[in-house]
């Protein structure tokens, strides 16, 4: 099966220096909008925040909406446990992100960009603003009407959800909105809005610089290009790595594991826990041609060795969700509490082991019924942990 996967390959695009940003920006805004959109679409870049929506299509949709007030928003509310790549991008190559936002603005017809930076990264605000000042100066020089400002979050995981982020920008509680309407038509201030993850924007810079082919040639069908991975947990070399999409988890563990890897959490607390026996049949990428299970990820890869209790892991995640759910919708607010209370009760013997099955059903209901992605995804880690490590939940 493995031959269907790509071998693990390190690549180096994202952190290649951004000193040529003025050239890239000028070059890009002298191309036609259609040409740029086509370039993006043919690159098959998908959103790197985790959800994997095709970026070219996203920009195209907003560009087609009528209206002279549109926004480009960079989602830097990187809150998924195990993810820390966006911070690194904004620290090391901020101009790539700013340039990408401006090009996006040019394409969709927006003259305002906002970077929503999580409160935990406040130390980045100042250097980012300095970069923005220089960037704005250049924009003026070339008569490009595009301004960018930084908006600070204040400690709320859910604000990474795009519509919750809009609410927060508007000075409200970060509660996700009903969808539809979607941001491309009705986003920040109820205006057409493109909202992209930091890394996604940085990739578009690569695409505008080298052309779509260079990006497209990496990865496999439906999972093109490279991706940043935040590697943490029981690993001798924690850190941030840019890898070609489509590798098998087995290869990944061979590269990053400590020789005793029991399971890997792919995609953070809202992602999936993959046990050792499924490493070889799991690939990292979006659903498609890959054999076996393919798991999308915002880039969080957490490794656990055999000293770790999977019960403690789940307990920790559920505690996290119980606190970070916005609390507005029933399945997420109460569901998270029930899952946590439930596994504790089973562990203590207050509820019989089959109660886990009721909880699995509940997590499925949460997936079907929660208002936003958070509540929907709690089931991912819950089910993958309980199904694969059931005995650890009980004894």
């Amino acid at each position, binding site marked *: 099966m493995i031959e269907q996967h790509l071998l693990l390959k390190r690549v180096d695009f994202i952190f290649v220096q951004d000193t040529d940003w003025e050239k890239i920006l000028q070059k890009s805004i002298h191309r036609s909008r259609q040409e740029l959109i086509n370039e993006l679409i043919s690159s098959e870049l998908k959103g790197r925040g985790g959800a994997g929506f095709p970026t070219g299509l996203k920009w195209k949709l907003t560009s087609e909406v009528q209206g002279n007030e549109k926004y480009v928003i960079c989602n830097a509310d990187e809150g998924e446990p195990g993810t820390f790549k966006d911070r690194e991008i904004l620290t090391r190559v901020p101009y790539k992100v700013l340039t990408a936002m401006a090009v996006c603005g040019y394409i969709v017809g927006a003259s305002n960009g906002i970077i929503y930076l999580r409160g935990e990264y406040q130390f980045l605000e100042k250097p980012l603003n300095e970069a923005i000042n220089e960037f704005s100066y250049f924009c003026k020089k070339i008569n490009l009407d595009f301004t960018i400002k930084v908006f600070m979050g204040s400690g*709320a995981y*859910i604000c990474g959800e795009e519509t919750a982020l809009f609410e927060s920008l508007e000075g409200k*509680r970060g*509660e996700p909105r*009903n969808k*539809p309407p979607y941001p491309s038509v009705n986003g920040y201030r109820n205006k057409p809005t493109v909202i992209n993850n930091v890394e996604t924007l940085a990739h578009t810079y690569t695409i505008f610089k080298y052309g779509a082919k260079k990006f497209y040639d990496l990865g496999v069908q439906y999972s093109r290009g490279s991706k940043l991975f935040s590697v943490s947990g029981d690993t001798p070399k924690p850190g941030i790595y840019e890898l070609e999409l489509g590798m098998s988890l087995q290869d990944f563990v061979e590269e990053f594991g400590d020789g005793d890897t029991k399971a890997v959490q792919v995609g953070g607390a809202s992602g999936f826990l993959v046990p050792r026996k499924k490493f070889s049949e799991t690939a990292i990428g979006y659903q498609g041609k890959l054999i076996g299970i393919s798991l999308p990820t915002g880039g969080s890869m957490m490794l656990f060795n055999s000293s770790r209790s999977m019960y403690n892991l789940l307990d920790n995640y559920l505690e996290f*969700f*119980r*606190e*970070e*759910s*916005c*609390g*507005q*919708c*029933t*399945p997420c*607010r*109460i*569901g*998270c*509490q*029930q899952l946590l*209370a*439930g596994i504790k*009760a089973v562990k203590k013997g207050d*509820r019989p082991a089959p*109660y886990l099955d*009721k909880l699995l*059903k*509940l997590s499925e*209901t949460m*997936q*079907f*019924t*929660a*208002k936003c992605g958070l509540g*929907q995804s709690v089931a991912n880690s819950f089910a993958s942990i309980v199904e694969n490590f059931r005995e650890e939940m009980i004894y």
Partner: protein
Amino acid sequence: MSETIHITINGIPVEVEENTVILDAAKRINVVIPTLCYHQDICVAGNCRVCLVEVTGQKRLAAACATPCEEGMDILTNSLKVRNCRKHIIELLLSEHHSDCTKCYKNGKCELQFLASEYKIMTQDFIELYDEKVHTIDNFSPSIVKDDSKCIRCQRCVRTCEELQGVNALSVAYKGHRMKISTFYEKSMNEVVCTNCGQCVNRCPTGALVEKNYIEEVWEAISNPDLHVVVQTAPAVRVGLGEELGYPAGNRVTGKMVSALKRLGFDAVLDTDFTADLTILEEGSELLHRLKRALLDKESNVPLPMATSCSPGWIKYIEHMYPEYLPNLSTCKSPQQMFGALLKTYYAKVRNIDPKKIVSVSVMPCTAKKFEAARPEMHGSGYRDVDYVLTTRELAIMIKQAGINFAQLEEMEFDRLMGESTGAAVIFGVTGGVTEAALRTVYEIVTGREIPFKNLVVLPIRGMEGVRMSSVKIENPLEEWKFLEGVELNYAVAHGLTNAKKAMDQIKNGSASFHFLEVMACPGGCLGGGGQPIPTNFEIRKKRAAAIYAEDLGKPIRKSHENPEVIKIYKDFLGQPLGELSHKLLHTSYQTRERS
């Protein structure tokens, strides 16, 4: 031109206009989808997730209240998946909810209980999340009891307080499992901007927000042979009460209500409408007095427009939000409080009863009236003028408790002495009614002629528009009122405090000027009051309004100044409007309050 969308619901084809949500589409073909956080009067939240339906081909279920129909959708409202998920949602809500149903004030009236019953939730597998140790009940307000342990976080109350009332006493606070509905800094409802209007109470699906009830106190008073217990009933009660007792909305049950009150054992059943008529004479005179000062005496600081003061929710609102306009309020007490003050003076004197032994009970469509009655200044008679205020809903409970078969009751008349009223008083219960009643009287006082509208129906002031403005031109006034010759008497009517804010802001920024402003805190006026039957919504308000107008037309006398009992009370007791005794008993003052 909106497009037509073709969908099927449970296999039945439906055509709807663009942007119709699934819930409304289902209603067209008589498919009921259960809801909790949805309420017709307020914006869609989509957060309880009870109304979920399956859209074929989609993995996730869609909230019917928030999802617009799209061409070709094939919707299932009762598939196995929907049923299982919906049951889960109800079970979850029950696990968070303090389900002591048999001890709950809303027992039998709770929407969550109803759903649990409908879906036959027979087991409670989930872990009880309600923690008795940490929860407290906010019982400090004389009007509203807030019990967070019963709250299902549907946020209907928050949206009501914000959208309908613009008060924002309630907000959503904290997040995750700690998320709750809270006042500023979790203070008591009695310590914040809450106007006690009770619109939240009227919309709460469970027992989390209820009126503070005085049912037992009233029963006790009735059972005490030494006490003379008198009840007054507000105009809007008679067009709402029936809904609690098996009648469809829009039925007038005045005669049966009087009959039921007598059976309950009240010693006298009287009518707030009597003091509504009296209010018109006092308030009308006050208006003319202010106009005279402004137009004839050319005084500069006459507070105009003069604003009505019958609605205690509105009074508390202006005390919090626009204290600089307190002088604009009419100093007239509300009809309830005028009634209370006269009951323990005039009535006691005429009937020769020791006022100490009189218990003054009122039945109101309103929860704010409970607060009003408890105001320290409402002791004009030397006693607390109104001892207990019951809502329409509480009266219905008492009628049921007493085993009265309401529908079979004969119709009776109010007792006399403060029981006579006119059509002008009845319309106090609907938005615009006070203005209309005032115009019927004021115009006639000034010109000696009836107001020139067919059947005395001042059409321009009727309707459900949030803020309505109009005017009447005074021509050929009587000698005493010559200064009003040719004056366009401008008046405005607002109902619901959000609309009151609109009107006040126009006054404040000078974009509108008028002489008279009527504000009722509740949408639709008192007929849509917080103490009225649940549900109350736009359609129901319209039906109750029609009933009130019909009651007006059916009255032999339809102008306040022609109420024989009103004429008599001035002759025998009060002297004249705005006289000394009036000032002592019928007028009041207001106070500035904090905005937070």
